[in-house]
């Protein structure tokens, strides 16, 4: 085995291997210096009480104290964590469904398709970074909406529909979540630009022959959606799911992230901030891992 391996990289192979390493060397260096070290350092710091001196910082080991404090002493952290994660699950699902639906529409032929695509992709550019965080508490919009609501004396189709559905009394909680998403459809729409493009690229790779064959066999459009389109782009659901969850975690208007920022920069409590971010990171990683494991079981590979 040892011999075989050594034999694998000789001559041209060896030269190519070296060239390959040279090509990726910036990444290796960057990864070791700016990722591995800070990662372990922050893991270590999360177990410490960091004392800041004038020129040196001095971590003092104190075990699980920071974690304990984050969970039991800090008044906000638990609440924020639960809120953000439940929000993430609901919104990610909504984003996936929405972008799948929109990409199905945008894949059809109609006039002005390029324009509509451009509009749907616009939020990727305009709602990134700081702008998104500022958008969140736009009081002016809220007052405007309130004004419109009072002038129309509270009569709205969605409101009426909501009431009708609520009176049924079954699954009220689930309905509430759905209504919340519908009321915030703007947030969903602006977060799904990249997902729409990924789905669209997948839809365009499905060959027309399949649909034609299905049609000849008497398949309706609805059936071929579930029997052809859905399995053929199922691998993209996995990609999009991971992307959406990760994207959601890194948004600047995320409550947990804001909390970590204030603890770190304003209160200068580095140990605590590290502990908090590690808790968050481990939860997210576990969540992504488990869900993508289950999704990948359902993914259908054509070739």
């Amino acid at each position, binding site marked *: 085995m040892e011999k075989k391996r050594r034999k694998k990289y000789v001559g041209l192979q060896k030269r190519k291997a070296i060239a390959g*390493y040279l090509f990726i060397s910036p990444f290796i260096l960057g990864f070791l210096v700016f990722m591995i070290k800070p990662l372990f350092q922050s893991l270590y710091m999360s177990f410490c009480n960091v004392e800041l001196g004038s020129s040196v910082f001095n971590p003092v080991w104190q075990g699980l104290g920071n974690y304990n404090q984050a969970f039991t002493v800090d008044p906000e952290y638990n609440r924020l964590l639960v809120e953000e994660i439940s929000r993430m699950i609901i919104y990610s699902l909504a984003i996936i469904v929405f972008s799948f639906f929109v990409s199905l529409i945008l894949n059809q032929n109609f006039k002005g398709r390029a324009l509509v695509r451009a509009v749907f992709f616009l939020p990727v550019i305009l709602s990134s970074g700081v702008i998104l965080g500022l958008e969140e508490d736009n009081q002016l919009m809220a007052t405007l909406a309130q004004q419109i609501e009072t002038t129309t004396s509270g009569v709205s189709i969605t409101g009426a529909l909501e009431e009708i559905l609520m009176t049924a009394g079954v699954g009220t909680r689930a309905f509430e979540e759905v209504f919340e998403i519908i009321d915030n459809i703007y947030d969903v729409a602006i977060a799904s630009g990249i997902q729409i493009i990924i789905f669209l690229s997948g839809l365009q790779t499905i060959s027309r022959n399949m649909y034609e064959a299905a049609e000849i066999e008497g398949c309706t459009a609805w059936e071929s959606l579930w029997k052809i389109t859905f399995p053929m782009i199922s691998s993209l659901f996995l990609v999009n799911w991971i992307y959406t969850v990760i994207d959601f975690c890194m948004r600047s208007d995320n409550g947990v992230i804001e909390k970590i920022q204030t603890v770190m920069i304003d209160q200068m409590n580095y140990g605590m*901030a590290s502990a908090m971010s590690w808790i968050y990171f481990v939860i997210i990683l576990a969540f992504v891992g488990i869900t993508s494991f289950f999704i990948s079981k359902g993914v259908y590979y054509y070739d």
Partner: protein
Amino acid sequence: MTKKPKPKTFENFWERNRLSGGYLVRKRLMGFGISLARFILLFGMCFMILQPILNKISVSFMTQEDLYNPIVISIPEHFTTENYQLAAQLMNYQKALVNSFIISITIAILQIAVCTLVGYGFARFDFPFKKLWFACVIIVILIPPQTIASSLHLHFKFFDILGLIRLIHGDTINLRGSAIPYYLMSAGCMGLKNGLYIFMIRQFFRNIPNDMEEAAYVDGCGTLKTFLRIMLPEAKPIITSCFLFAFVWQWTDGFYSKMFLGNTTLVSTSLARIVDSLGAYIQRITGVKTTISIAYANCILATGTLMIILPLIILYLFAQRQFVESISSSGIKM
């Protein structure tokens, strides 16, 4: 001549329709209904996405009294450009624009140059531990930068390379507040969303057929020369679009800018502070500490946001195709 076929086809249609038992008319109506429904749906969604921008545009031209006038909703009664002047002054617009432009361009060029190299390395070469290193790229994509933020913060506050600087200089150097750390990180592929760029570029290179490269090798082209002369021109579309993304995301980025470029006036950071600086400005003028009304603060904020995204919108109008087609051309699959 031209008149004759027209009524004929018309008759034909009804004739055909009669023969098919009303199927043709039903099909036409269905098609019309579907496209109408699609039009309404898409129009609504496009309006929903564009509405905040339109709203900002109308608000930015309003005077203070218009903001409180309940009759004025979208078209201002007293048209004014004062808001723009004030916002420009508060954000230090010209300086911020130049700074942002320089930083975004240089960072984007650096990041994409390095990411292209790395992506090509991952796509085309076979070397030991390749899987492991690629797993590291995935980790870089997955780890939110906030996790290591606190540590990076300290890392650059007491910057040192293997204790060398301490040996020569006598003390560690504080790199915080300067732009150097961010350039260093960009050179090491650890900037904003760099893992994603590596991933996309690698996907693109993998889809290029091997033949051209092999032909170049056979003709005696070295590795680097093959990459520069043969593969790089092929990868132009993905590189342009990644560059555009890098530029745009860097332009609006708040996290890295706040962390590393805190002392430089950038459009993103000055926009985040605009409401506070408005308060300070008014206090300086009137001499009294007053709370600014929410509507006015938002009006200035909207104006500032518009001024910041204006260059991006212009860029998007010209390079829309590159943005949209980039991801489809990379053929992301798992």
